[in-house]
């Protein structure tokens, strides 16, 4: 007997018992809706991770002042806090550039947390960075207007600043910031550049909330010290990332006189580590939701199994009749299995559609975009059908095991 005919019988069976089919479909639909929303959110999160790693820069590593256990140094996630470890200095920058092979560019920076930025009667709290011109190259930082911090600015310890779009919006509103003098921790700086948009950092921070001043101006005029918060290093070839990181580690250990077994006073982050860190921030959340989806699917499967079992009991006459007119046991088994699989498949399709609606709602609530990839669609179709087949196994076996005489006796 042709499979197409059996499938036809299964679908007709479903249309004969519409309410029952509706309940079964609903059971699966709920599970697949949750699965779709969860997976889409997960895919969206993964996409954001990749985006953040791209923002971090695949060709770059970061050397941070402070050891791996020095939690006070960094803010949540990556980088960011004020340096309390006073050992990373400008001499280290020069040494890395000269002595480590495979380094294309180095960009040192200093910062001590957030600072008050004022213009006329308005003020805003912003991360203030002391940087060199290389900072623009290693980050590919775009400019909106004016110029970035120049080499001259740095050597002359000029009181100039390049500010990010968030700072412009908060302090200047619609007024032109170029040429205006702002107070950074009480010291006046002239705005000579407006930065372009960078978006969200690997650690989730707003990279448009930035005030850049020349590194030397920052160290001498603002904080009056000589140590750095970190050094961003751009490598020649991303395949040499790990060996460059190892060479820098060895060099700095030597320069800082750190004996084997001693705690390091610096830390290196590569793009691989950024990926792992950002994933850890999402990980437990995803696992919990996938568990919820799995439970919803199991419940859906139990609903289908129960209703199919009920259906087999109530359709004994039909089963007996089919056997009497020539159906073999496996025809009966196939018919009920196909009914169960088909109803679950249709429920799965419905679940995917509802999941799309759910995605839109979730995006509205959480503000994070969901991503419906073909993986999600395939998972929805696969899991619904598998659950349908599994749920149908026992009822179908029961139907097939009925002898014609048993089945016909009502």
């Amino acid at each position, binding site marked *: 007997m042709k499979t197409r*005919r059996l499938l036809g019988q299964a679908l007709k069976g479903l249309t004969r018992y519409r309410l029952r089919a509706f309940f079964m479909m609903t059971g699966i639909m709920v599970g697949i809706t949750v699965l779709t929303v969860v997976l889409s959110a997960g895919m969206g999160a993964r996409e954001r991770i990749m985006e953040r790693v791209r923002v971090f820069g695949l060709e770059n590593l970061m050397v941070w002042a402070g050891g791996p256990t020095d939690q006070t140094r960094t803010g949540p996630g990556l980088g960011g806090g004020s340096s309390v470890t006073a050992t990373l200095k400008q001499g280290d920058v020069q040494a890395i550039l000269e002595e480590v092979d495979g380094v294309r560019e180095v960009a040192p920076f200093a910062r001590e947390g957030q600072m008050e930025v004022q213009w006329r009667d308005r003020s805003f709290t912003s991360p203030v960075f002391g940087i060199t011109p290389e900072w623009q190259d290693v980050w590919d930082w775009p400019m909106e207007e004016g110029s970035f911090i120049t080499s001259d600015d740095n050597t002359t310890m000029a009181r100039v600043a390049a500010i990010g779009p968030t700072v412009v919006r908060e302090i200047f509103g619609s007024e032109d910031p170029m040429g205006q003098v702002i107070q950074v921790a009480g010291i006046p700086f002239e705005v000579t550049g407006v930065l372009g948009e960078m978006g969200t950092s690997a650690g989730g921070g707003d990279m448009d909330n930035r005030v850049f001043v020349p590194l030397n101006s920052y160290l001498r005029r603002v904080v009056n010290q000589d140590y750095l918060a970190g050094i961003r290093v751009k490598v020649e070839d991303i395949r040499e990332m790990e060996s460059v990181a190892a060479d820098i580690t060895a060099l700095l250990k030597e320069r800082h006189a750190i004996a084997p077994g001693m705690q390091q006073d610096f830390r290196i982050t590569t793009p691989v580590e950024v990926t792992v860190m950002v994933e850890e921030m999402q990980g437990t959340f995803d696992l919990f939701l996938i568990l919820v989806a799995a439970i919803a699917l199991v419940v859906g499967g139990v609903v289908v199994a129960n209703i199919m079992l009920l259906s087999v009991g109530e359709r004994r006459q039909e089963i*007996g009749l089919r056997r009497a007119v*020539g159906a*073999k046991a496996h025809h009966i088994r196939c018919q009920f299995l196909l009914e169960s699989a088909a109803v679950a498949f249709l429920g799965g399709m419905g679940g995917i559609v509802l999941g799309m609606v759910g995605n839109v709602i979730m995006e509205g609530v959480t503000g994070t975009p969901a991503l419906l990839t073909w993986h999600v669609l395939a998972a929805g179709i696969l899991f619904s059908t598998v659950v349908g087949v599994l749920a149908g196994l026992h009822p179908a076996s029961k139907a097939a095991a009925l002898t014609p005489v048993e089945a016909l006796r009502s």
Partner: protein
Amino acid sequence: MTKKSLIEARELTRSFQKEGTAGVQALKGVSLEILEGEFVAVIGSSGSGKSTLMNLLGCLDRPTSGSVILDGTEVSLLDEDALAQVRSQKLGFVFQSFNLLPRTSALENVQLPLLYTDVSDLEGPARAALEGVGFPEDRYDHHPGELSGGQQQRVAIARALVNDPEILFADEPTGNLDSASSQEIMGLFTELNRRGRTVVVVTHDAEVAGYAERIITVQDGLIVSDSHSSPGEVAP
């Protein structure tokens, strides 16, 4: 003229084992032969074993002992799938409760046996079968719920005939019908038999049995009489 033997039953017994009780022997050694073209009624009271006998002759069940030879083949030795094949090719069944699929048109109900064969044209034979039982063509699309009892049984008979079986079995075919419809249906069986179909009707009703040319009486799992009436003499 000697007619060909269609079914031969030899010393059939059938026991049913119920949990915790002694087995019940529904048939206690039955032998009979049904010839091609016969119209046979198997009559007996409830529990006499007549339905068990029909199930064995109709290859729906297998005997505890004894044998059934259908068309020269020893069917009591066949496995479940082979029996299904035999039912599909050689036998047709009509039941007391019509047993039509609900919410399914008359035409589709009749097609059902063909689904389990290699026949590719389902509708042609189904239409022919419905026409053969005098079912009105304007109701081919009607569902069982929209048909009278007599019409439903006609559909069921058409379904039993759609694969052109050698024997048509009917188990209490008039049990759910009023007397007018019963007469129509029994008239239809008579007509089908006149056209050459071998018909076996199982009933407890002597009036229904009276349509047959041969009446086999079953009592307590044994055949107690097997009588032929002259053709043409019977119809009331």
